[in-house]
């Protein structure tokens, strides 16, 4: 089964929940789709077995064939090209890799070239296979890396996908392959506000989902209120626990060092498994 963990707001506990779910299973694959700031590997400390480059296709110019017709410059919706008397300037960071300029050049002066935007690392952490996507600094879109990660998902196995925060296109790519979505929410107004956003997202994609309330404190919980108002299943409530915070801050996996948390996450995993079937 493929479980995506998302939240809308950053810092609510997506990685905490994803990493611990993966470790609670007998055998699992943990996929870090938060390619701008991947954190799962800091907890799982995998032994890296494979590292691959993620590239995008960009144009390469052969000026000797150029007739100066400017079809490429005029076509490019992203203004990534500038034609001077003796050269075509190509701005790679603005290029969206649509391939249009290469396709439509009447003189076939443009050809395809690969350019690295990030990496995918595969590794092993006990019974957990760890796939980590990482976007190079200064690059604008991690979507091609998510696509690369999704292609590497095995058929069987429990797969836990740690999604980026927000609900933009990169999050959509991350949940595309999921059978079930776990929405993590914190008990603040910010948390409930952003929970509403990902709630809309999972409904749009018709994904079955449930909520995990994290860092619960006594008193009002706006996120809990939101769930009750919208009849959303609450899968678990993790109380605010200084000890858990400390474990987390040290990069330790709760399930691997605490019996209490092992029980909690095993329970959550079975609950999700039941929902998926």
């Amino acid at each position, binding site marked *: 089964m493929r479980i995506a963990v998302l939240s809308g707001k950053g810092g609510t506990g997506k990685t905490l929940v994803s990493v611990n779910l993966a470790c609670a299973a007998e055998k699992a694959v943990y996929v870090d789709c938060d390619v701008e700031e991947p954190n799962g590997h800091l907890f799982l400390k995998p032994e890296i077995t494979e590292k691959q480059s993620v590239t995008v296709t960009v144009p390469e110019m052969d000026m000797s064939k150029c007739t100066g017709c400017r079809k490429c410059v005029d076509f490019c919706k992203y203004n990534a090209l*500038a034609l001077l008397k003796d050269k075509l300037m190509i*701005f790679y960071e603005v290029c969206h890799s649509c391939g249009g300029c290469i396709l439509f050049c009447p003189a076939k002066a443009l050809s395809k070239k690969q350019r690295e935007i990030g990496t995918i690392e595969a590794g092993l952490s006990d019974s957990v296979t760890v796939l980590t996507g990482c976007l190079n600094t200064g690059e604008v879109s991690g979507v091609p890396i998510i696509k690369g990660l999704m292609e590497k998902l095995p058929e069987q196995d429990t797969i836990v996908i740690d999604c980026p925060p927000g609900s933009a296109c990169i999050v959509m790519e991350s949940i595309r392959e999921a059978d079930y979505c776990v929405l993590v929410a914190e008990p603040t107004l910010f948390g409930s506000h952003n929970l509403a956003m990902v709630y809309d997202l999972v409904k749009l994609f018709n994904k079955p989902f449930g909520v995990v309330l994290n860092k619960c404190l006594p008193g009002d919980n706006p996120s809990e209120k939101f769930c009750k108002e919208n009849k959303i299943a609450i899968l678990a409530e993790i109380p605010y626990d200084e000890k858990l915070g400390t474990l987390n801050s040290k990069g330790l996996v709760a399930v691997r060092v605490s019996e209490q948390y092992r029980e909690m996450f095993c329970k959550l995993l079975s609950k999700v498994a039941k929902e998926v079937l």
Partner: protein
Amino acid sequence: MKLIVPVESKSLDIPVCPSFGRTPLYMSFDTETGNHEFLDNSAATSQGGAGIKAAQMLVDHGAKAVITYRCGDNAAQVLNAAKIEMYKAQDGSVSGNIEKFKSGKLSLLSEIHPGFHNHGGAKE
């Protein structure tokens, strides 16, 4: 030669526009004849790469120099490659800046700011 100044409206008595790539208009001043015309900046509403598109337009127009407060990295690369000089605008009117340019009182623009996307810029 053609000297370009970004402006917010069709007048010479207003300040130089603070934006280069997304200014609504460019004033093109012919230093030989003393005539001027206004060019619409179609790059102003671009999704991205506005500086590149604006710079391309000025290259096509035959500009030889630009007076501006600031210029993004991508636009600067295009202007540099086309050997169009960039001068730092000063406070005061457009006509004031043109006079200063003529008497050599404007300095070259040295601070190029990173654009929307910046990572080593263009490659050929």
